[in-house]
């Protein structure tokens, strides 16, 4: 079931487009912001709201890399693995996060605090290597800086 707030927020985007389904990516993001991911149940509810079949909506949802169709951790670490970051030391950063959290790409820590994912070029190549955690951007990374950043997210948890 969509909450009233979710429904209202999704409906507020409908006026921006001539067809309801154009708002579907935004709608999936509304759900994901509230629940962390998009469950089958939510997918069905959103599809009904936008006059789409669940399959039509899932077809869209599974295409976009930042729509999650399975649960993720409380925080998602997106490490840029594109070319400039690769040249500037991405492999070392990835290994350091792997060792510190005990997870590689696609995995979630047992306490559910972090999911670790690769992401394409974040457009901050003159400050590589770069990563995002949730909505926050971090650059000019080295092992020490990673430790500092991750500690902040771990203490908060």
């Amino acid at each position, binding site marked *: 079931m969509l909450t009233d707030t979710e429904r209202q927020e999704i409906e507020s985007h409908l006026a*921006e*487009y*001539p*067809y309801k*389904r*154009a*708002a*579907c*990516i*935004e709608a*999936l*993001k509304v759900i994901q912001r509230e629940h962390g991911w998009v469950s089958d149940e939510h997918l069905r509810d959103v599809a009904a709201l*936008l006059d789409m079949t669940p399959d039509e909506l899932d*077809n*869209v949802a599974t*295409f*976009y*890399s*930042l*729509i999650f169709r399975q649960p993720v951790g409380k925080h998602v670490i*997106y490490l840029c*693995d*594109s*070319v*400039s970051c*690769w*040249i*500037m030391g991405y492999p070392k950063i990835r290994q350091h996060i792997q060792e510190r959290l005990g997870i590689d790409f696609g995995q979630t820590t047992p306490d559910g605090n972090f999911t670790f994912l690769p*992401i*394409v*070029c*974040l*457009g*901050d*190549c*003159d*400050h*590589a290597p770069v990563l*995002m955690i949730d*909505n*926050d*951007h971090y650059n000019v990374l080295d092992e020490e800086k990673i430790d500092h950043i991750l500690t902040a997210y771990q203490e908060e948890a």
Partner: protein
Amino acid sequence: METPLTGNIRPDRTPLDLKGYEQKGGYEALRNVLKQMSPADVTENVKRSDLKGRGGAGFPTGSKWSFVPMGDNAPRPKYLVVNADEMEPGTFKDRLLLEGNPHQLIEGAIIAAYAIQADVGYIFLRVEYKEAERRLRKAVSEVYQSGYLGKNILGSGFDFELHLHVSAGRYMCGEETGLLNSLEGKRAIPRAKPPFPQVSGLWGRPTIVNNVETLSCIPHIIRNGADWLKKLSLTADGGTKLYGASGHVNRPGLWELPMGTTLRELIFEHAGGMKPGYQFRGVLPGGASTDFLTEEHLDVQMDYVNVPKVGSRLGTGTMIMLDDQTCPIGMLLNLERFFAQESCGWCTPCREGLPWVANTLQAIEEGNGHPHDLDVLSEHTWKLGPGNTFCALAPGAMEPLQSALKYFRADFERHIEEKRCPWK
């Protein structure tokens, strides 16, 4: 030296608000357009300025606009779409314009919309650009309050609505027709052309898709004239260009410089040359999908006409440096993995060919390469080349590969002969 695009961007990128932008002459161009110019006049000015699209393809902007059906019988609504889906690896120029001066982009978009008589516009922004999103939302709402957007703008009778559309990932959204599908709430797969979007684009209506940097030039063309923009350039392609450099250079960054600045000046003056301990070996001049250039090409003028003469493209103008401490095959493997991952899967050469290329490169990099592999890779460069795919993703992916096979062949052969990566 004039820097119209970045002149009003503060070093920390805090953007001017509406009032601040107006104090610097902002929205004057829009006022003049609405008061004194016909849509055809605007397009004619942009044509005469020789402005070419800054998204990478370099198509003349004014010509693109002129393909839109005009007049009372034109299909409505018409659309203007801002491509703010900057995702070409190694490219970080539009982020500066989006974060640093959102009003400049919005003013350019409204003028472009007037030129094609668009009814509705969308700024298609990648979701990871959070700061840009916040600033654009604020700027768009300021503009609505001031009457530069909405019904009967400044009493001119021209109506235009502008919405911010935030995406959810995938490189394919930057491809013009993939972007339109994504905006319609579908997978970002490309469309066959013709029909071109100018005639049949978003929801089958006439649509112009322009890059952020392109539209940011528009207010300056109106304010200062087409000839002025032309003269900013050192070559036949009008304007300044936001150039960038990443990799092991002393000063990675972005610079607004006259179009046609040489590769040598960009790398060795503006980027400060290679860091101590690193030698220059090559450069991707304009993002991941451009051919490598090497030492012998350093005097090329970086624009849309001269770079192709030496076998590459200006692309986005943001250079990625290859140094002697970095394995060229490893770098290429990283690039081709990216393209294989981002292929939308719609057409077979791209969907099947790119993973094959990436896997072959991985085998070579890991010491499992075979001399025949180089022929397999060469064969892919034309099988995935222009004309064999729906869009430019796979042909773009072949550009660094074909040039690497040419300039770094000895490195490929060494990997295969020694059955290892000499850099490891």
